[in-house]
């Protein structure tokens, strides 16, 4: 489990590589209750939407990014904000690589330690998704961002 004193601006997170299949896409869509056909119906995706195949849905990309961040922080890491911009769909057959770098570290007025991360999901040399995450991590071994509520939580 990582603590605030162990993080510096410019630190790279361990990258993650995953081979996307049709099952990945469909499982992610159904797990997020997204029934839209472009995430499970090949013919709809190709013939109506004009893309090459079904593709990862937005909430599931969020789930991959959440996992990537908390794999690094450990379970006390608590996401405050997540932004992602999808520039190119991610399809079955793609090998996606998720990477991240710490852009900023700070402690807010309540004493909460924050790390701001720049994240990307790429396939080969193409960046498919750009993302920014703001995650609270413990400032000491006794601290736990999940205990913060109300005005003490300022994401």
């Amino acid at each position, binding site marked *: 489990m990582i603590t605030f004193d162990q993080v510096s601006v410019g630190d790279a997170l361990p990258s993650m590589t995953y081979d996307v299949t049709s099952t*990945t896409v469909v*499982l*992610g869509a*159904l*797990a*997020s*209750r*997204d*029934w839209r056909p*472009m995430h499970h119906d090949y013919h709809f995706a190709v013939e*109506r*939407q*004009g893309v090459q195949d079904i593709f990862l849905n*937005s*909430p*599931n990309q*969020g*789930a*991959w*990014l*959440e*996992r990537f961040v*908390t*794999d690094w922080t450990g*379970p*006390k890491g*608590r*996401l*405050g*904000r*997540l*932004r*992602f*911009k*999808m520039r190119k769909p991610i399809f079955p057959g793609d090998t996606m690589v998720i990477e991240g770098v710490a852009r900023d570290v700070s402690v807010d007025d309540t004493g909460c330690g924050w790390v701001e991360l720049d994240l990307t999901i790429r396939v080969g040399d193409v960046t498919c998704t750009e993302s920014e995450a703001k995650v609270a991590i413990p400032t000491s071994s006794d601290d*736990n961002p*999940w*205990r913060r*509520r109300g005005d003490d*939580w300022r*994401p």
Partner: protein
Amino acid sequence: MTDALPVDVEALIGKLQYEEEGEFPVERGYFWTSAASVENANPIFWDDAVAEEITQGPVAPLSLLSAWFRPHHWAPGRTVEKLPLQIHFDLKARFELPEAIMTENVTTFHEPIRPGDRITSAQRLVSVSEEQTRRLGTGRFWVIDVEYRNQRDELCGVERWTGFGYRRADMPKDPQ
């Protein structure tokens, strides 16, 4: 830009719409299905002792936020498909744009969501762009906020979605 918008669309900007409670209480099975879908081994989702120690009991994966306002694909007596993010589909229909994709999402997470919670969502149209042509086709971008609260009226999160509704260049206006 909104200066070229139809009056009826302009009138919707900033207005809270579609405030409604989710169709089912938050259930823990979805926590596991979501975590499994991305092979997320975070013990706060899988180990009750860890969840108790760190999050004072089970909490939903934060990225699952939008799942709690997505309607069932079918329900008894329902004759018209009920859609999530209804404003998005309203705009597709209003501008006669048969296709749409989501291009950006920004979510701010507040009070964690727990099993048994009843989540209420409300949508707000933030902006609609002028018509423009992109690789996929010609259409408009729009930005929609969705706010989520639990049964104690505590704010659980706010999602800001950017969508692009479009008509493919090789496809005429949808007669529907």
